[in-house]
Structures are given as C-alpha cells and as structure tokens.
C-alpha cells in the first residue's frame, strides 16, 4: 500500500475496524474454556444465578479487557494511518457503540464451541459472518465522518445491532451452554 498519506487516509476507517475485529476474535475462545476445564461452569450452572446473567457478565468482562482498550488507543492508531482530523470523534464513537456487539456475539460463539478441543478455529468461522454487519456500519460511520457527510444512518444501524445483540443473544448463549453441558 505504501506510505502515501492519501492512500492510508482512504483505507484507515476500514483497516482500523478490521483491526478491532481481529483483536476481539483473538481472545474469544478463552471466555468459557477455562471455566469448562476446571469445572466451575458446571457449578455456575447449578448456582442460584441465572446463566443468562453469567453470560452477560462474561461478555462485559471481555469488552472491558478487549473492546475498551481498543477504543482508548484508537486515536493513536488513527494517527499512524493519517486519519483525517474530523474523523477521530466518529472513530471513537463508532468503536464505543460497535465493540460491545463484538463481545456479545463472540460470547455466543464461545458458548457454542465450549468443550470442543481446538474449537478456536471453528469459533472464528462461526463468528466472522456475524461480525460483518457491525464491521460494515462501523467503517461506514468513520468513512462518512472523514468526508464530512452525515453519519446518522450508519450510526443508528450500528447502535441498533449492538442493542439487539445485547438484548437477545444472552438468552441464546445461556441456552446453548446448557445444551453443551449435558
């Protein structure tokens, strides 16, 4: 791609969002793996806390350790890629709104593959297609922000995906966890 600022600035929104997505993917398979191995997942499933809440807290913990740091260092990454000045706000905002969906969807994938040996590869294959809408609208927010266009529509869709995922997926994750524990 070369070091030309023009080229880099053009591809920066997409690259930054793909980077966030891949970073998220790296840590997904550990969400439940350790709890499954040491037996605490069985104990949590029989404990007086709803499994849906356990799953939600797991997703939150994943976001705090993966998504939030990405949001915080994203301006530095933008600087490295000559992101236009007016796009920084949109980059931070889109990551802040979009990365929770990555964690919640990823937790669902981790619940699906819990107990599989070397399930990480399968997990990536399952989760990547589900990440595409977030990626598309997230990068679109930054790209439109960089050109000074209105970002309302992709931002609303991005927030919609996140809210929908946060509202619905914990139930699905808890259900597949129960099935996987049988």
């Amino acid at each position, binding site marked *: 791609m070369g070091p030309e600022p023009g080229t880099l600035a053009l591809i920066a929104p997409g690259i930054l969002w793909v980077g966030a997505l891949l970073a998220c993917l790296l840590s997904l398979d550990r969400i439940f793996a350790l709890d499954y*191995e*040491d*037996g*605490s*997942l*069985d*104990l949590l499933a*029989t404990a007086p806390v709803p499994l849906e809440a356990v799953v939600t807290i797991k997703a939150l913990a994943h976001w705090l350790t993966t998504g939030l740091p990405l949001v915080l260092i994203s301006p530095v990454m933008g600087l490295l890629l000559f992101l236009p000045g007016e796009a920084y706000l949109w980059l931070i905002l889109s990551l802040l709104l979009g990365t929770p969906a990555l964690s919640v969807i990823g937790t669902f994938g981790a619940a699906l593959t819990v107990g599989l040996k070397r399930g990480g590869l399968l997990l990536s294959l399952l989760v990547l297609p589900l990440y595409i809408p977030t990626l598309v609208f997230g990068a679109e927010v930054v790209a439109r922000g960089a050109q000074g266009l209105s970002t309302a529509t992709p931002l609303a869709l991005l927030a919609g995906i996140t809210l929908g995922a946060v509202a619905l997926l914990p139930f699905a994750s808890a259900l597949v966890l129960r099935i996987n*524990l*049988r």
Partner: protein
Amino acid sequence: MLKVHDLACARGGLPLLEGVSFALAPGQALVLRGPNGCGKTTLLRCVAGLQPALAGEISVAPDAIAYAAHADGLKSTLTVAENLEFWAAIYGTAGIAQALEQMNLRALRARAAQHLSAGQKRRLGLARLMVTGRPIWVLDEPTVSLDHASVALFGDVVRGHLAGGGMALMATHIDLGLPEAEILDLAPFKARLPEPGSGTFDEAFL
C-alpha cells in the same frame, strides 16, 4: 426431601440406567455404588439438573441442591479464602470461617489455589459445599485424592450436615465411615440396550 421415581438417564445418547427410584428424607445419606461406567455420574448430573432425564420424575424443592463434581471448580490465581468468598457471595450466605475451620484449611487461607496439593484442592472444593447453605449435597466421588485423615474429616462434616437436617447423595467407592448411610447398588438398574439395527435413525447423529 428428594424423591426420584422410575428415573432413566442417558450419557452421550446411550441409555445407561432405567427404573431408578429412591427417596431421601432430612438427615439421611445415600451412597451410590456400581462399577465404572454404570451411570453414577450421569444420575447425579440428572438430579443436579445439569441434564434432562429420559424418563421418570425427580421431585425436589427448588434451590435445595448443592452439586460437587469431579472437578473442584477452583480459580487458580485466587486464594483459598477468595475462592470460598466468591461462592458464598453467589449463594448469598455469610461467613466462610466455619468451612475453613472444619475442612482444616485455616492455615492455607491466604495461599493461591494453584499452589495447593491435589488433596488440599479437594478439601477446598468440599468446603465450598458448606458455604452454599443448601440442604441436599450431591457429591461425585468426594474422596478422590484425600488421605485417611481428610476422609475422616470429611466424614465428620457430612455427619454434621446430616445431624443438622441435611441430606447427602453421593457416589463413592470407599467407606466414608458413615454406617447410617444407605447403599444403593446401581448395577441392577442397567438399561437394556436396543437391539443393534432396531434403533431409530436419529441415533447415528447423537
């Protein structure tokens, strides 16, 4: 009160046990016996609610069961006290001092779980039962890797639990020193396997 009536359960899609019935009243203990692979763990997981029964009924008050599996579910970087406090918080009970005292863990309370020996980990796993405050203990091979002294210690703890109106259902091969416990041999309840080829097509996918 725990009542199991005509229970059938399966592991990996294969029926293991059928027609198992028993009842536990407060203060009673029941020890499950049987050869390896006869379905003791599967039965306990059914009773604990981790897997559905194929047939039959399990009637038990909600939130009465504390389950302890083969694995202790310890977090290796947390200390002994932190591990117990976590479960005490989850079960909404207060005070881990008695559990530490009775399982002889007081000297180890500040040690990280990863630095415990296998037997010490097991003692910590069993101490977790005491902080749950649940009346029915469902125990899967509770004495694995315990020495004689610790087995006796655990026998005392179970006896104390029974004396307080608790119940215990456990699978174990060794004598816990609980002469009052009833013994249920699971071998006669072995499920009849379907004739090869007569099973439904779905079994190929289980």
